[in-house]
């Protein structure tokens, strides 16, 4: 069924607050520029661009310090459309550029010259839709294996049976050319390639990094993704909104509740359902606990990467206590499926507040201990200080978010700056940020966030009042046709959900903007000049979750 992009409702005059920006976009060659209602669609400005004017328009945005949040490919049948989502820092608008290309040619100019961070996103669109990006430096499959000859997110793809060719039982050819290009090969060849992963203890899952090294110094490196690609976005186009809930847990299994909330919020923005006050408080408590649990896993595994084993066990011990609470409140330890449109699935048990406040008291003591054992440790400082510096410019260009962004001195947190929950405005807390941009700064931001989360949980517990935990939700859940975007702040950064609905029970296209994707992309820029041991340190400090990236 062909789907026309929704006609944009003009917003009332006094609300259109970015006339200057709209004017500049028009001048650069954008057509059909209009402003949208943020509360309804999650976007402020919408602009149609031609392939010729795309780079010019994007340059305007780059000068305005917009960061590229994600690319969304859509099969509009018959033509393809690629949406470029931009975000300005702090109070600035969210801008959506739309570029169209027809099915036969399927080509668009690359944006990598303007935004370095467009690199992987374009490769993903190339994977999923077969859209070619002219002059892209290395347009190869990103998530799919190199032997597949299909584009799964095209609407006319229906899961053709795949035969793995005999020769791919071997690990595919190393991508020597691309790696050589990165390194400055000298006449005397003492350089070689080091293949890290997919089974490597410190790639946090099944990431593969091909390093070009000389001795232990790294000349360059390339990430190979997709070893955990599970086709979640295609599955979403076949599942009802209600049925998709369990899949949101499994994207980022360390903070499933934050993903639950993001998805629930998307549906709430789209349908206008509102959750109850008690549910809102519960959401904040559970998500902050989830953030604590997630950061604890980060701390443990990071130290494991740096060679210390004991902090890992301490952190897991504390995390177990949080998981016990999750299990008692939601019914599962990790894949909670707890937060749904209109509230939460069930009310919590009677000693909930008591247990949590006790846990938070212990947590404060533990944080002091971690500070002594880990963050203050001289060896830890040596391994992290001035290692892997992400400059604020790089962070914005690549769309880095979460603690990695705040570690680079950009003070942005969706909880405060795009409050998706009233409670975050009422509670007393602050957004920690550091200016170093190195692994140490990122670590310290996370440690400070742990403390702030404890603060938030303790205050939110006081606001917990009796009442229903779920508002009335229609039995057959349908989302009115339209395009919606919602943003929440997960432990790793901004989780964005872009939904194109056609009015039925099933999404037409659901795109998840995952924080780790953009965060990991910087690693290729950070690696040259460091040492093998530093790569481990940098990767650990970025705190990536591979299934979240691969989806």
């Amino acid at each position, binding site marked *: 069924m062909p789907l026309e992009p929704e006609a944009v409702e003009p917003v009332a005059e006094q609300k259109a607050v970015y006339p200057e920006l709209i004017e500049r976009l028009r001048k650069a060659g954008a057509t059909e520029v209009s402003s949208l209602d943020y509360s309804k669609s999650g976007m402020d400005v919408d602009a149609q661009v031609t392939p010729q004017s795309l780079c010019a328009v994007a340059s305007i945005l780059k000068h305005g310090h917009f960061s590229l949040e994600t690319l969304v490919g859509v099969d509009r049948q018959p033509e393809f459309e690629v949406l470029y989502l931009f975000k300005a820092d702090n109070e600035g608008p969210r801008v959506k550029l739309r570029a169209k290309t027809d099915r036969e040619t399927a080509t668009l100019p690359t944006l990598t010259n303007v935004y370095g961070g467009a690199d992987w996103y374009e490769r993903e669109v190339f994977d999923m839709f077969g859209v070619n990006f002219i002059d892209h430096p290395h347009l190869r499959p990103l998530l799919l294996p190199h032997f597949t000859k299909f584009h799964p997110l095209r609407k006319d793809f229906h899961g053709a049976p795949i035969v793995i060719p005999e020769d791919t039982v071997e690990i595919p050819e190393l991508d020597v050319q691309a790696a050589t290009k990165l390194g400055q090969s000298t006449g005397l060849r003492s350089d070689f390639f080091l293949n890290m992963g997919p089974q490597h203890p410190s790639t946090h899952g099944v990431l593969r990094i091909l390093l070009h090294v000389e001795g232990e110094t790294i000349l360059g490196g390339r990430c190979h993704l997709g070893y955990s690609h599970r086709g979640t976005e295609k599955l979403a186009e076949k599942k009802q909104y209600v049925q998709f809930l*369990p*899949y949101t847990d499994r994207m980022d299994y360390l903070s499933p509740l934050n993903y639950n909330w993001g998805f629930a919020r998307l549906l709430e923005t789209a349908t206008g359902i509102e959750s109850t006050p008690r549910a809102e408080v519960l959401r904040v408590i559970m998500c902050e606990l989830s953030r604590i649990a997630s950061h604890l896993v980060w701390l443990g595994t990071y130290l494991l990467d740096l060679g210390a084993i004991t902090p890992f066990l301490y952190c897991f011990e504390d995390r177990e206590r949080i998981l016990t609470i999750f299990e008692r409140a*939601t019914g599962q330890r990790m894949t909670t499926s707890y937060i749904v449109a209109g509230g939460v*699935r069930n009310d919590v*048990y009677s000693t909930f507040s008591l247990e949590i406040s006790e846990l938070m008291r212990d947590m404060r003591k533990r944080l002091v201990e971690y500070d002594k*054992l880990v963050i*203050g440790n*001289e*060896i830890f400082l040596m391994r992290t200080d001035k290692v892997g510096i992400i400059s604020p410019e790089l962070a914005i260009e690549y769309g880095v978010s979460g603690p990695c962004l705040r570690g680079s001195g950009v003070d942005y947190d969706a909880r405060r700056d795009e409050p998706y929950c009233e409670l975050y405005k009422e509670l007393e807390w602050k957004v920690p940020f550091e200016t*170093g941009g190195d692994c140490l700064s990122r670590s310290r931001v996370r440690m400070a966030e742990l403390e702030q989360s404890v603060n938030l949980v303790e205050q939110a517990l006081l606001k917990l009042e009796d009442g229903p935990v779920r508002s009335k939700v229609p039995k057959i859940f349908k989302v009115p046709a339209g395009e919606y975007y919602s943003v929440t702040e997960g432990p790793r950064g901004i989780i964005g959900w872009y939904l194109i609905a056609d009015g039925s029970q099933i999404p037409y296209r659901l795109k998840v903007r995952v924080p780790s994707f953009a965060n990991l992309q910087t690693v290729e820029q950070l690696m040259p000049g460091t040492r093998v041991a530093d790569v481990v340190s940098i990767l650990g400090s970025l705190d990536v979750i591979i299934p979240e990236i691969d989806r």
Partner: protein
Amino acid sequence: MIERGFWRGFGSLLTGLGVTFKRMFGKNATIQYPHVPVPVSPIYRGPVRLIAEEVASEHKCIGCLACQRICPTHAIPILTVAKNEQNKNYPVDFVIDDALCCFCGLCVDVCPTEALEHTRIGDMAATSQSLLRREILHEGAITSDNFPTSTGKKENKHV
């Protein structure tokens, strides 16, 4: 920023040793699993079972197929329904595949007659995949010990 220096660094190393030394006298966190059962939450979403009625072979289930339709992972592969004398639907075959189940609990939520419930079994393990397809229509109350997949040898023998 943390002040860096030789003595501070040396001190921090000693502090670290102090932390681990203190932990040596801390409480042991281990649950000795096969000897001591791991506590499971009362609302834990374990493998799904059908609640049997007083009268044998009569279940609360009315064969509405809502659970089969809502299951996101198609973990209810067989649910055959027949009509009895009173022209009422009842299930004659009901299979749940624990290998496919993602324990989301949507089937339990959606059931209009509350015929399905979660068990609190948290330690399933099977030696073959076919054992994980459970015919739940005539299944008794299952527990961790008589779960059909387990060989019941959970007590570890000492050497």
